[in-house]
């Protein structure tokens, strides 16, 4: 068993570093024969990137992650993690991945360090090694001071950090994070983002995360897959997704009364110029680069820019573009969500 784990590269033969470390093809999960939670999903995650699954609650994010971490069997399709098939080589997959679940799974009656050791035992890590690692990990998530306190006394942020430490105990190559900042306050959320960035930067870890926070996907992920009703609607780096909408909106006014539309139109990246009530609405790709170019060009023609504002499209606009509804609206249709959740629960039983 260990030999296979030591050499997954040789064994699978198709994994190169910087290659697809997770690959899903037609991955599907149907609960109770009628509730399709994940519907023929295809995607791949490259070595060393932070890949995000973005979508409203009930879109199928957790079901996808649960299939990848081998606790649910796909109804159809396949996926491989680090070259290992998630159904045929589940136990090899479990050895190379770390999981930080959505819930707080740490045992409240045990202390922080006892919880980490318990996780280590589940991987069969010898006590001598696990004690050393526990010290390191508690240091990493800045929990050393609280390590001997019972988890029942921890705050939400502390529990999250403990979950993170537990997920890292087997030194995984890929870490799965299911809604890592759900229910955290802004400060703790930022701190969690920093840990996640650190894992990518300092340990070269590949991270697969789900989130329903647009800002989180934007701030953290190298690539984002937007998922809606169990289907991936679009995949790409957040910047590209936003640019694909046709760019940013630059609004400017000049002191002079001349029509400068012609001048602006010729500038690189500018797509469209409209004069409205004495100000110009300019649609441009890469607004932050284009705006200075516009100012420069107008100054050369002897015009003075008096006012300028730049509006970048957010992932919410991307979501709107591809699903036809605002992410926030989707979140707010609580009743529909609650009904679906009930069905899911029944289906899972």
């Amino acid at each position: 068993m260990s030999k296979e784990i030591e050499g997954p590269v040789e064994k699978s033969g198709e994994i190169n570093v910087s290659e697809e470390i997770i690959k899903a093809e037609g991955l599907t999960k149907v609960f109770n024969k009628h509730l399709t939670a994940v519907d023929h999903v295809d995607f791949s995650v490259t070595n060393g990137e932070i890949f995000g699954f973005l979508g409203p609650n009930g879109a199928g994010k957790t079901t996808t992650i649960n299939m990848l971490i081998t606790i649910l069997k796909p109804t159809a399709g396949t996926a491989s993690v680090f070259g290992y098939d998630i159904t045929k080589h589940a136990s090899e997959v479990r050895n190379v991945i770390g999981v930080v679940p959505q819930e707080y799974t740490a045992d409240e009656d045990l202390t922080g360090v006892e919880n980490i050791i318990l996780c280590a035992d589940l991987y069969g890590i010898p006590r001598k090694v696990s004690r050393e690692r526990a010290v390191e990990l508690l240091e990493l998530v800045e929990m050393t001071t609280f390590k001997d306190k019972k988890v029942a006394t921890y705050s939400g942020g502390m529990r999250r950090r403990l979950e993170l430490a537990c997920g890292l105990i087997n030194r995984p190559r890929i870490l799965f994070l299911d809604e890592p900042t759900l229910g955290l306050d802004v400060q703790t959320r930022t701190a969690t983002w920093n840990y996640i960035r650190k894992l990518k930067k300092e340990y070269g870890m590949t991270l697969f995360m789900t989130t329903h926070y647009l800002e989180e996907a934007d701030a953290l992920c190298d690539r984002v897959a937007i998922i809606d009703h169990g289907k991936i609607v679009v995949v790409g780096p957040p910047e590209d997704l936003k640019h694909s909408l046709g760019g940013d909106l630059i609004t400017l006014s000049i002191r002079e009364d001349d029509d400068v539309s012609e001048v602006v139109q010729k500038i690189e990246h500018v797509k469209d110029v409209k004069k409205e009530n004495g100000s110009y609405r300019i649609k441009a790709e890469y607004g932050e680069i284009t705006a200075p170019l516009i100012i420069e060009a107008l100054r050369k023609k002897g015009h003075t820019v008096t006012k300028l504002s730049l509006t970048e499209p957010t992932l919410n606009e991307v979501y709107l573009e591809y699903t036809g509804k605002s992410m926030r609206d989707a979140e707010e249709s609580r009743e529909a969500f609650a009904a679906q959740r009930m069905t899911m629960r029944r289906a899972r039983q």
Partner: protein
Amino acid sequence: MSETNGNSKSKLHGLWALTNRDLKKWYKAPVIFLLSIIQPILWMGLLGKAMNIGAIFSGSSFALPPQLATQFTPEQLQQLGAYFAGLQSNIMTGAFSTADYFSFMSVGMIAFTALFTTMFSGMSVVWDRRLGFLNKALSTPVSRAVIVFSKVLSATLRSMFQAGIIIVIAVAFGLQFGPNFTPLNILGVFAILFLICVGLSSIFIAITIRSTRIETPMAVVNLINLPLMFASNAFFPTKLMPDWLQTIAKVNPLTYTTDAVRQLLIFDTDWAVLVVDFAYVGVFAVIAASIGIVLSWRFLSK
């Protein structure tokens, strides 16, 4: 980065970690630990000492009507008194195979405790599911069978400990050992308890592993625990039961467990009966554990 070279390759790794996690909830919580010791004392006090069935048949219960008493000479009365006094012991021995109901009942308490402790073992599975711990464990390389068996083992160890307490208390309260009792017999008691606990907790875990609500297994437990208890020889001998109840009692593994413990502790040991008891409970444990583990396995790897 992943270093699995030094990790345990045993299929059983994690078993003790998971078992100890459950046990810690019990022995590290002083209140729960204390209550689990007080519970059998209360039951023994109530059923064994307060409702002393033996006292019903005592000589004073058979006092002659006054007009009848005058027809006998004092010597005859004395003889009658002696007869009645002996009658109690005869009735008790005839019905319970021992003259002391407390001894009879306190052994029944051991089976009672095994049943109750194992029944609630399923509950912790529900909690682990609800709190997400089960999913967490499932995403680690720990074997599915180990997850189930750790629950069985923790319930078994717990009820064996409680059974030990009961024996100590019962002896302190006046349990009368059988004529060929040796301390070695205690080992036999723990052996049969191990078997019955493994069997019972496997069944209860199989019942509860699918449920996400605590209410479902609670209802199941409440439905079957007392009937299962009273349809056995734990508190009352089967031979005095109506036929239909005897039939149930004869397939109830608790009957065989209790009988085995009585053979070992308080009866004049009948080795042939004891072998049958062990065989029956052993087969029950193997079948129940197989069913429990197969069902749980199938459900856990859905």
